[in-house]
């Protein structure tokens, strides 16, 4: 049977990290890369594993996946976020892969997204496959926000989901949304996306609206009732925020930008 390394990239997750680590303590090795948390994340993590590495904060965790992988000893990697957890059924399924019953080198795992208290089935949130279990020499990593590792060979699909707690309350969701949209706007700016007087109504109103309607009507957001409606509204808000921040970058009076980390 092959051995498994679990990698987690964290920042200020003291309220969630224990819940996550409790469900993967059966793994052979846990590697945690912490982006200089201000709270007790590192202390809590050390109760579970010695391999805790502290790096500089980057605003999102994707660039540090490579760092985490470089510290692992085993070939098989399970990548988790601090707000996710592994159910017992998923553990069994992973065990079956490790014992050599399946021949693929990487696996997509479905994700059960919990928004506030509810499991969201519509809005394109389920199954929402993510590439999380893989042999480290068979994938490439991208540094972009909200991207998966890219498999080199054909990958398999899991049946049992990872459980993902997206947020506990609305303040937290908005806070995350605000941070992510700043990053996304900056990336769009570097790519050369332009918002001018000709397309501002499209970019700032029609695109957000069509995305929201797409989620609510065509991806069956209405199935989740009021929760689906909230998600559609937040979709509108996210796209609107992203594009208005892009506009802000373009039209700032003195064009004086710098990347700011603490």
């Amino acid at each position: 049977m092959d051995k498994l390394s679990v990698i987690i990239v964290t920042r200020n997750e003291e309220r969630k990290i224990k819940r996550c680590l409790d469900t993967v303590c059966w793994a052979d090795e846990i590697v945690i890369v912490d982006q200089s948390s201000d709270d007790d994340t590192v202390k809590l993590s050390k109760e579970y594993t010695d391999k805790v590495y502290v790096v500089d904060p980057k605003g999102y965790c994707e660039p540090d996946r490579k760092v985490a992988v470089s510290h692992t000893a085993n070939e098989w990697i399970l990548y988790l976020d601090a707000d996710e957890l592994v159910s017992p059924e998923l553990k069994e399924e992973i065990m079956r892969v490790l014992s050599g019953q399946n021949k693929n080198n990487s696996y997509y795992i479905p994700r059960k997204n919990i928004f506030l208290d509810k499991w969201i089935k519509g809005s394109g949130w389920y199954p929402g496959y993510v590439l999380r279990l893989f042999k480290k020499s068979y994938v490439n990593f991208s540094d972009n926000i909200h991207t998966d590792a890219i498999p080199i060979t054909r990958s398999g699909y899991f049946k049992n989901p990872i459980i993902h707690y997206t947020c506990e309350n609305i303040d937290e969701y908005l806070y995350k949304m605000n941070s992510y949209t700043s990053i996304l706007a900056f990336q769009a700016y570097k790519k050369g996306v332009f918002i001018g007087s000709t397309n501002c109504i499209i970019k700032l109103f029609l695109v957000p609206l069509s995305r929201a309607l797409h989620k609510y009507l065509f991806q069956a957001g209405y199935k989740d009732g009021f929760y689906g409606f909230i998600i559609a509204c937040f979709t509108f808000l996210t796209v609107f925020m992203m594009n208005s921040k892009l506009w802000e970058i373009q039209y700032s009076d003195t064009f004086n930008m710098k990347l700011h980390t603490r």
Partner: protein
Amino acid sequence: MPVREKLSVIVGTKNAENDIGDCLESVKWADEIIVIDDFSADKTIDIARKYTDKVFQRKMTGYPEQMDFGVQKSASRWILVLDADERIMPALEEEILEKLSRPTDASGYLLRRLNLVLGREIRHCGWYEKNNIRLFNKEKVNYDLRLKYLVRMRVLGSLGMLDNDLIHHTCRDLYEYFKRVNLWSTLNTEDLIERGFRVNNLNGIFYFFIKPGAIFFQKYVLKAGYRDRFVGFLVSLLSGITYFLTYLKLWRRQSRGPQSTLWKKSWHNDPVMPGEIYYIEKRFQ
């Protein structure tokens, strides 16, 4: 010539090291400066100490209570209340001194705030109206302490008017603006809960669908927000969104019961520039 009334300035702060210096510099002329700080994690207090000895630290239990604490500490009868992101320009300074040096019936003065959003002046959208009492006689005007975050004042007697504007740096970029929208809607929710307001299936249709749209229409069309160009549109739209979020948070709180640790939540507590993101910093002025 009659003696000029003495003036105390009260400034409420939290994690405002970027603003507090300029703010206190603009009110140096006052007879007394009192800074009430809500346990800032940054250099706010050190900077404030350069201007005044009267720096108090007090846990924020509600904005009116915080300011009332300052009023009790003040030595003079006339009070000027400021936030760290507000500035007194020389014209307003002269006007205030002139009002204080002649006898008056007024127990307080209404003034207008000129909000700067992304470095642009907001002169419409309903944001540029004389509805703030910042200069008042503490014997005749006091705060309504029943409200936690919104400000309502009890006034005995009549109010005068100040003609010059108070400059308010509402936000310097959109990151900060959305952060404020998040905070404002939480604070509104707190006050709605305090008043015992509830949303249900019936009035929800009004509060989730109609009211945000109506607020946008009011600010953008009726209050001529369109004359502030794109920033006017942003301000109007985000006002509507703030109302939507307020009722959404209220709905959430109703179904979950009280979570009264509002000010401990890290997503409100950190300073305006958290290191968590690639922050795009610009200087608009």
